[in-house]
């Protein structure tokens, strides 16, 4: 009986040793969360972020205007990595005229300063043609293609004339520059999961989902058992 108990104690000891080390290490780290700023540092690993369900973010539309990257994620419009305004409808293109960045949507033009500050939304109430399909430049003047034809204006954008032109430089969607992609990833995901949360999830097994919790329970049961067998062996030696 004594030999069998010792054998069981040794086997369980070897089995749980690795996990006890992990529990002890993560426990000590959690005890010093504030000292180590673990609650202020955030996950950057793609693999772990994907594991937490925060997948890669992909823009619905990207346009490069001057030195700025304009992108749209759902209804949120970004200039570089800064959210600037909302548009419930897709951005169809963008141009630069004088001191303005102009983005086109189906029913309105969105105006921005060269620094990317949102100025205003100009819609049908100020004469912007409806059913816009694209925006472009013709000898420096803004031109929009609509379902009802082509319209040309000047830098004031308040008078539009219908005409037909050849050689308009139409705005085209482009690929997101990797530097802006990284900044946007930081914006969307950078402050999603703290290091403290990951360590806590390793500590309690939740990093592996519900199976991890059960595994942690099983490990707890082993620790209880190993304590009992250890006490039993200790008691037997004293007798």
């Amino acid at each position, binding site marked *: 009986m004594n030999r069998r108990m010792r054998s069981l104690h040794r086997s369980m000891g070897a089995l749980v040793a690795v996990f006890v080390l992990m529990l002890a290490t993560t426990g000590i780290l959690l005890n010093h969360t504030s000292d180590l700023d673990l609650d202020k540092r955030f996950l950057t690993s793609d693999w772990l972020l994907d594991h937490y369900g925060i997948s890669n973010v992909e823009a619905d539309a990207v346009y490069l205007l001057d030195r700025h990257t304009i992108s749209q994620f759902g*209804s949120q419009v970004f200039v570089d990595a800064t959210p600037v*305004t*909302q548009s*419930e409808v897709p951005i169809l293109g963008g141009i630069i005229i004088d001191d303005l960045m102009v983005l086109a949507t189906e029913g309105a033009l969105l105006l921005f*300063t060269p620094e990317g*500050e*949102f*100025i*205003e*939304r*100009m*819609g*049908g*109430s*100020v004469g912007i043609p409806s059913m816009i399909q694209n925006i472009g430049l013709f000898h420096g003047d803004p031109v929009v293609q609509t379902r009802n034809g082509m319209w040309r204006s000047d830098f004031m954008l*308040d008078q539009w004339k219908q005409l037909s032109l050849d050689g308009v430089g139409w705005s085209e969607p482009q690929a997101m520059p990797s530097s802006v992609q990284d900044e946007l990833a930081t914006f969307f995901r950078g402050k999603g999961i703290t290091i403290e949360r990951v360590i806590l999830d390793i500590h309690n097994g939740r990093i592996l989902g519900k199976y991890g919790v059960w595994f942690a329970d099983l490990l707890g049961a082993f620790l209880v058992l190993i304590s009992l067998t250890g006490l039993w062996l200790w008691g037997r030696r004293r007798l």
Partner: protein
Amino acid sequence: MSNYKVTLRVFALISLILSSFTVFARGVYQTDQNFLAEAFNNSVPKSKVVWVKGELAKTITELLGHNYAGLRIRYWRNDQRSVWILEEIGKEKPITFGVVIADNKITTMKVLAFRESRGGEIRHPAFTLQFQHAQLDNMQLDRHIDGVSGATLSVRAMTVVARLALYLDKFTG
């Protein structure tokens, strides 16, 4: 038919009715152009802009409780009235309001577009009529606006826009 099936069908019917109300709450009720044409009897004057900067920017921030989302605001004015088409976030999405002001008082206040899933009741005349003849008194409306159950944030947005339009009318008048 078993009680279980009857309960399930009643539940499905209620869900369908409730979801229909949710869908109907969203939408464009009147285009900006129609609202302007109505306000100016089809003689819409050329629009003007007021730049949101300096003291005006500070006052607007105080009125809204946050910075105005834009550097300029467009408006229309003739001898009798000014018209403002302004947006303010209700809970998550912008609500578009049309405000007509004459003699420093609101004559018409309408919800032109509502994009939230709840709170669309504020578009009904029974609610918007509360704003008729309202004016500013120490930067507040001179009257109490009764709320709508379940539309607190939409009511707040409409009240804030009413105050903003009245202030801007005075500022640009």
